[in-house]
Structures are given as structure tokens and as C-alpha cells.
């Protein structure tokens, strides 16, 4: 459990960091995935650029209808932030499910998203929330929608030398109901499946449904068929069941020691049902 030799730098300035990344450095955020991978020698970056000292990447603020979270904001900061809890409760709820206390104190929202683990907790909510990522490299900045960001298993829209600097989250409609429900893999704590749901109601009808799913397929995704089935309904148990049954539509389910593809698919439906029920009940 000893990593290969590597160069380590911990710049305090973003520009400096981007320069180092441009010349081949590997970004280190909270280190909750990269460090174990390095210790197992499954990765051997020559130069690790620790982003942990860049104060400018750690913030949560509200601006004109959106929340902005710096990429190096820890899960615990998200989970416990009064601002996130009131303006975007789904994200805070999702953060509270990640790993354990130690992991939440170290792991960051940017690091988690950039790693794009197919069973990570955050991406389900990031999908349901339709967030945007602010990316930066030495050659400039750009903004990418979450749908374009997650490309495949461990694969994102990030180009070499590029990092997430900020996650932009729309402020939640105060009347919306949200929920993140997760089946926990007993060894790792990752999601066997995790479903994030956002429901807005008006006049007794579901006007907007957003469902993000993690753990089920090669990457987190929006279950748009389920959303469609629910929108326009009254959100009764039967409506929810129908929508939940469609959550796995078009997805080839993962299989591993802890859950076969069939079981995962079924659990995605069960947990979608649970997340939707809670979200519907919370929507006012």
C-alpha cells in the first residue's frame, strides 16, 4: 500500500495550479479516490497537484437565483451549510449520505464529480438538479451542463489539464419536495442504487418532476421517462408506481458481487418509488 514516487505541489493560486495541470499534473481534490488508487498502484501520476490550499475554490454563495459552490467545498460543508439546506435541500441531503464522517470531512463536490464513479452519491442529485459545472484550464474557462458533463463510467467532459472550479445549482422552488434514497452497498458504502427526486406541484398536479439515478448503469442519468409519466398526474401512489417502474428504461444495469443486474434494476424501481413518494409528500 505504498504509492509510486511522485512529485507533489500544493499551489495556493488557481492560475498557478492550472499552469501545473497544463504541464501534465494530476489534480488532487479530497483524495478519497485518488489516494487509495495510488496506494494500490493502480495509478502512478508523476506529479500530483493538490488543490486543497486554493482558498478561492472553497465557498458557497448565492447569486441571483443560483447557488455557487466552489469545487473544493467538502461534503460536510455542503451537508451542514444553512444556505444549501434552505436553498437546495436535495444537495445537502445527498451529501449527508456519502461515505462516513471522515470521508465527508475530506471529500469534495468537485473531486467526486470529476471522478465520475458510477456508484457515487452526488451525481444522482446533480442530475436531478440540472446543475452546471464551471470548468477551467490554462487556456480558459467554460460552462458545461451536467448532462454533457458525465460521459461514461469514470469519463467526463473534462479535457486534460482542465478542472471543475465551481458547481452552479439553481435555487430550489421553496414549494418543491425533494428526496434522495439510497440502497447502501454494505462494504463500501457506495450506492447500489441511489435515486434523487424533485417534485413541484401546482393546483394538485405534479408540474415538474426530476429524477436522477446513480449506481444502476455505467453513469448517473436522468430518468426522463419516469419524469414524464409523473408530470401532469396528481402524484398518487399509483402514479408514482408507474413512474418508478420506468426508472430503468433504456439502461443496461450493472452487475457485481453485491447486486445482480436484475436485482439492481428492481431496486432502482423500489428506491425511485420511495424517493418520489417522499418528494411528493414534501411538495406543497
Amino acid at each position, binding site marked *: *500500500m*505504498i504509492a*509510486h*514516487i511522485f512529485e507533489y505541489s500544493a499551489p495556493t493560486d488557481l492560475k498557478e495550479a492550472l499552469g501545473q495541470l497544463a504541464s501534465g499534473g494530476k489534480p488532487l481534490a479530497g483524495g478519497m479516490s485518488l489516494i487509495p488508487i495510488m496506494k*494500490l*498502484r493502480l495509478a502512478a501520476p508523476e506529479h500530483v497537484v493538490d488543490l486543497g490550499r486554493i482558498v478561492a475554490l472553497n465557498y458557497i454563495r448565492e447569486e441571483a437565483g443560483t447557488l455557487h459552490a466552489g469545487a473544493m467545498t467538502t461534503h460536510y460543508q455542503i451537508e451542514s451549510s444553512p444556505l444549501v439546506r434552505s436553498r437546495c435541500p436535495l444537495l445537502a441531503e445527498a451529501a449527508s449520505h456519502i461515505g462516513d464522517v471522515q470521508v465527508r470531512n475530506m471529500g469534495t463536490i468537485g473531486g467526486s464529480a470529476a471522478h465520475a464513479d458510477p456508484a457515487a452519491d452526488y451525481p444522482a442529485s446533480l442530475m436531478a438538479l440540472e446543475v452546471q459545472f464551471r470548468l477551467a484550464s490554462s487556456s480558459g474557462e467554460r460552462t458545461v451542463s451536467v448532462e454533457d458533463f458525465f460521459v461514461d463510467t469514470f469519463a467526463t467532459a473534462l479535457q486534460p489539464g482542465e478542472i471543475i472550479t465551481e458547481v452552479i445549482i439553481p435555487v430550489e422552488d421553496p414549494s418543491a419536495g425533494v428526496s434522495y434514497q439510497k*440502497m447502501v*452497498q*454494505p*462494504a*463500501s458504502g457506495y450506492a447500489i442504487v441511489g435515486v434523487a427526486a424533485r417534485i413541484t406541484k401546482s393546483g394538485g398536479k405534479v408540474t415538474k418532476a426530476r429524477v436522477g439515478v446513480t449506481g444502476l448503469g455505467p453513469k448517473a442519468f436522468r430518468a426522463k421517462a419516469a419524469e414524464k409519466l409523473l408530470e401532469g398526474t396528481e402524484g398518487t401512489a399509483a402514479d408514482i408506481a408507474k413512474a418508478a417502474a420506468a426508472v430503468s428504461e433504456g439502461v443496461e444495469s450493472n452487475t457485481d*458481487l*453485491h*447486486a*445482480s443486474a436484475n*436485482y439492481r434494476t*428492481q*431496486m432502482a424501481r*423500489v428506491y425511485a418509488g420511495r424517493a418520489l413518494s417522499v418528494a411528493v409528500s414534501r411538495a406543497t
Partner: protein
Amino acid sequence: MATTTITRTEPLVGKRIRRREDPRLITGTATYVEDIQIPGMHHACILRSPHAAARIRSITTQPALDMPGVVAVFTGADTQGIGPVPCGASLPGLRVPYHRILATDRVYFVGHAVAVVVATDKYIARDAIDLIEVDYEPLPAVADPEKAIAPGAPPVHPEWPDNVAFTFHQEGGDIDKAFAEADVVVKQRITSQRLIPTAMETRGVVAEWRPGEKSLTLRSSTQIPHLMRTLVAQMLSIPENRLRVITPEVGGGFGSKFNVYAEEALMGFIAMKIHKPVKWIESRRENFLCTIHGRGHVDYFELAAKRDGTMLGLKLKLIQDLGAYHQLLTPLIPTFSVLMMPGLYKFANIQADITGVFTNCVPTDAYRGAGRPEATHGIERMVDILAAELKMDPAEIRFKNFVQPDEFPYATPTGLSYDSGNYAAPLEKALAAVDYPHLLAEQAKAREAGKLMGIGISSYGEICAVGPSPAMPAGGWESATVKIEPTGKVTIMTGISPHGQGEETTFAQIAADELGVDIDDVLVIHGDTTVVQYGIGTFGSRGTAVGGSALYFALQDLKAKIKKFGAMLLDSDDILFANGQCICNKTGKSVTIAEVAGASYRAMKLPPDTEPGMVATRFWEPPNFTFPFGAHIVVTEVDKDTGDIAIKRYVAVDDIGKIINPLIVDGQIHGGVAQGLGQALWEQAVYDDNGQLITGELMDYALPRASRMPWIESSHTVTPSPVNPLGVKGVGEAGTIGCSPAVVNSVVNALQPFGIRHIDMPLTSEKIWKLVNAGGQA
């Protein structure tokens, strides 16, 4: 000399005293093997086979040797002079493969040590490992014991193509008659999966050779320092008295450190070769791959009974997955299962056949319970299966078959003599705790409401205080030395090797009570073969029952000597020793224990036929094992949609004889239950068909987590053991043994509406979900 009135201080035995070893453990001031730094120390890293079976065509070490900082690389060719990793078990016809400390021409399991690099720091050592080229010719492997004994299976050891290491047959009573007279026979295949002990501290060794003194010191994270000294001295062909084994703080063992491993001899060999101290610390990956696993049973049970529930006889065909080699006691572990197979029930007829099977996996050996959890799981599942078959209440059928309180000592058909017991008492207490009739009514209501609620009972017995010497390959006695120093401080040197069991506290309690001294004046020393007299070690729930008894007798010797000196100092024959003072009954004059001790060392005057000093040593041989017992009741609820199991209540009533420290006993029960739950619900070491351990990390091997533990309602009945003077039975393994059948019985009971009779562990959510949603097909 002061005159004092006697006020009897309250005894410490029986008190909830906080563990005296804990402050250093929780403040990071304890010294583990990894904390040891010796000037000039080098570091070793071991190259291990990625194949479960392969021929080694060649090993190229030169590129590693060329790396700056690398001092030496050794392979199997260099270490052929070292004796094999020892197997202490002997069974008739046992096939013992020659277990070299480094593989030579062939590897037998993933993780098999192939070469070792020694370097000036651990980082260089690890980097150099990647520079060694091994040319392997992969061979077919077999990881499943039943597949291994099927025709055509690849041979693990080519010299024994049937993969059978031994067979063992035991019979008691008249099994054929029992089955002929039976109204009903229930049969079930029950597995007890491979488990990874996962001590918090992995193994580690520091070896130091002093060429001038021709002496080798090994610091090792072990449960058996003295046995290790004897065995490693033999492996290295050095005089035993020039080998010192020191056990620093040990962060858990659960049996996995009740062993002598290749690395202990290997580090000794290296230190003697390079004349430098060398350290090796096992990584978690290595711990999973190379430290022994536990369990690994496939059991075929047949239970014969009368229609009224009277059990008549039990047959067991036991297939033990041994792994590729025998570690210290590997082949003996399933024989413990056979000894314990009748459980607490008084049928007189048994038949058992063990087949010990080689597989291309890391060896199995003693893991918390060592053979007894498997046996208990088997009999307690079979009793429930019989109860279901006869439509009897599981509690009722147990009461009907228990050995009765007036039948002790009770001779079992497996040749044991149960020491003492009242087997109904803990079950009655547990049933009362859950209000059984009410609970049954609640279950009936829950079932009507479509809920899957389960009630599971286990009435377990176990063998502890291991054990009388004839039952153990290297002796089963234990030793203690007690010294009262000239200032009156008390030093205990025990032959056991505590590594979490808390004897630094419990032994101090015993000594403080016996000698009437302050507990803070008592120091318990263990785990250094040069300081402590020979001892056997800590395993098999023996520490207090055997080691504590040796201590008790040494204390009695000392008390007699104290009284002699007290009589001399007080010039009286009428002496009482109490509360740390000798008191003359006539005059009321007294001397303190410190005064007595001081006088004994100054020896200006000695009592008749008495030597100076205040030291006593006892080696105590127990006349029998002890047999703790108890009843656990588990209430579960199964989520139909997901197969998740929720433990609603966990009631444990354990009879472990007399209790020295209830706080420590609580901890032992909690920890034991945690590991029992681990086996019942989550843990499994999974090898794929090619012998790759695919649960090779804590990412996939599901240990119990604190957050998943139920509340344990723990209480006791107390039936003292007549075997030892303390009346204790042992508690280290009780929780584990009682737990798993209670959990599985509860979940099977919850799934009764689906006609489920048995489920193999671990009860993963998917397994349960399939049973619920596919009408009984797992």
C-alpha cells in the same frame, strides 16, 4: 508497627472497572510493532503470487538488486535451509504439504510469498518489488472444496490428486439404531462461509540479530509469544534460549495471530543474514490474502427424532476447506465442530465424518469460535428445521431435549464431560425478556398485515478454557508468576498474551482482592519470552479461566508466605491476613504487605524453612474444559421490497460462569455478537473459479459497522464452573457462537409463509429478496 481495625474493603472482582490498558490505546501512546524504531533498521517487502496455481519457470531479481537502497533480495532458493511453516496438528493419516517460507518451483494460492526485498526504507523496498520478474506458467486452480473433491478436479498438490488431506470419523452411541427408531429424519446442507478475521492491526514483525551475543529478538504481533519462540527457533535452527519473542501492543487477533507464519522466520533469517534489524508490516491487502481465514465448512446434517420432538441422533458429513497448506491448527479446527455437534441436547448417538480438503486458497484456521460456531450453527438450525417439521415451538423442543441440571458432569457422545449448567435458565430468561407469548401474538398480527416478522432462538453451548493438555498439541496449561516487590508493589507475569481481552485489568482485580492491595499497585506483564516464564498464550477463551487460575494459585502460595513472614514479624502464630495486612488476632498489631515484602528481601531473619523474597510461580493444568452456554433471541423484520433485514431486538443471555468484570464482559459479548452478525448478514470471502480473492479489500468485504449494530440487551445467568477456582467459564467467543443461528433462525422464521426452511449465510438482501419474490427459489 501500627495497630488498625479491620474494615473489609469491597471486592473488586465483580465490579465494572474501566480497562486500565485503554488510556494508552485511545491516546495513541501504545507501542505496536509498526511503532518500533531501531537504529539501522531496514525494511522488507514481499512479492506475492498473483496466480492461485502456477509453476515458477524463473525469477529474475537482478534489476531489483541494482536499485539504489536495495540491500538484498531472497527467493525460495535462498531459504531452503529454513524449516517449514509449522503445523501443530496431528491426525491419523494427515497429509502435510511441506510449507516453505518462500515458494520454490510452484505457487499454491494467490498471495503465496515468492521473494522478499530488503532495502533501507520501505518505499524503496516496495518499488523494487515491481522490478522482480517472475515467469509463471499458470495452472488450473480449484477454490471450492466440493469441486476440489469431485472427479477431474485439478490437484492442489500433485502428489495427492484427490485433494483430500485427511478424513476423520467419530461415532458415539448407536447411530443406526437411533435412525431406525426415529419417526422423523430431517436433512439439510448447511454452509459456514469463509471469513476474513480482519484484526484492526495487521500482522508485523521486527527482527533484530545481535551477532556478538548470537541472539535474535523478534517483535511480532502474535497471540502466542512462547510457542512462537519454540517453533521459530526450530525453523531457524537456533537455540531457543537465544531467541527472544516480544509481543508489543497487539491490535486484535481473533485467532488470526494464533499462528506462526512464514514472515516471522523470514525476518529472523534476513536479520541474521544482513546483520541489521529488519521490519515488515503487513498491508491490508496482504492481510486479506495471506493471513489465515476462518470457517469454510460445507456440512450435511441429518437429525433423527421421535414425533414428540425427542431427538435421537445426529449425523454430520463435514467438508472442511483447508486451503493450500496447514497452518498451526488448520486440520484440528473441524474436529472441534464434531466435539460440539450435540450442542446442549442429550441425545446419545452421533456420527461424524470429516473430509479435509485442499484448495488453492489461503489456509483456514482458528477464527473467533474456531469450529464451535459452525457446530452450533448446524445443530441450532437443525433443531429449528425439526421444530418446523413437527410443527412444534422452537423453544419447546429445546426445553424438551436439554441436558438437565442434575445430570452434570454430563458425558457427551463425542467424549466430552460438560462441567456444569442449567441450560433452561438462560432460555427462560431470554423468553421472559422478550415476553414470548406476547411476541408470538405480535408476529401473528404482523403476518396478517402482510409483514414479515421473524423470531429466532439459539441455545448455544461451547467449549472454553482450552484446555487440558492432552487436548492440545503444545500443552493446555498456563503459567503465572506473582512478585511482591520490596516496596510492596505487585508484579504479575502471565503466560497468556492478552490483545484486547483486558486481563491487565481483570488480573489486577483478582490480585488486588487476594492480596488486599490497591489495584494501582498491581502491574500485569505479558508477552516477552525473556521476562515472562513459559506460557501457552491467549486463544480459545482461556485467558482468565486457565491463566487467571494459575494466577490464583500463585497468589495463594504468596499469601501463605506472607503469613509466615507476618507471623515472624508479629511474633505470633495466630495471624490473619486481610486487606493487605497481617494482623495478630491476639494483640491486634499488624504489618503491611510492604513491610512484609521488604523484610522478605532484606532477609535479616527468615521464618523456618522459608526462602528469602516474595515470588511465586505456578503452572496450572486444568482438569477439564469449561462449557459456557446461553440463549440468544433475535427479532427481525424483512423488507419484502428489498430483502433488507432489520434487527428489531437482540436479547443475549449468556452463562459464562462467574464474572470478574461485567464491563469487559459486555464488551466481549458486544464484539462477539458483532462478528456473529458479520457472518450471518454481510461477510464472505469470495474466491472466483480461478482462485482469485475478489473480496480483496474492505470495499467488497463487508465488515459489520458500528452504525449497523442493533442494541444488544445483554444479561446473564451464573452457573460457576467447578473446573477452576475462579468459577469462570470464558466469554471471548460466546457472542459469536450464539449469534449466527439466532439471526438465521429469525429470518427463516420470518420467511416461513414462503415455505423457506433454510438459508445459507450471509443473508444478503438480494438472497432474501429472491426468496420472497421467487417463491422459495434462492
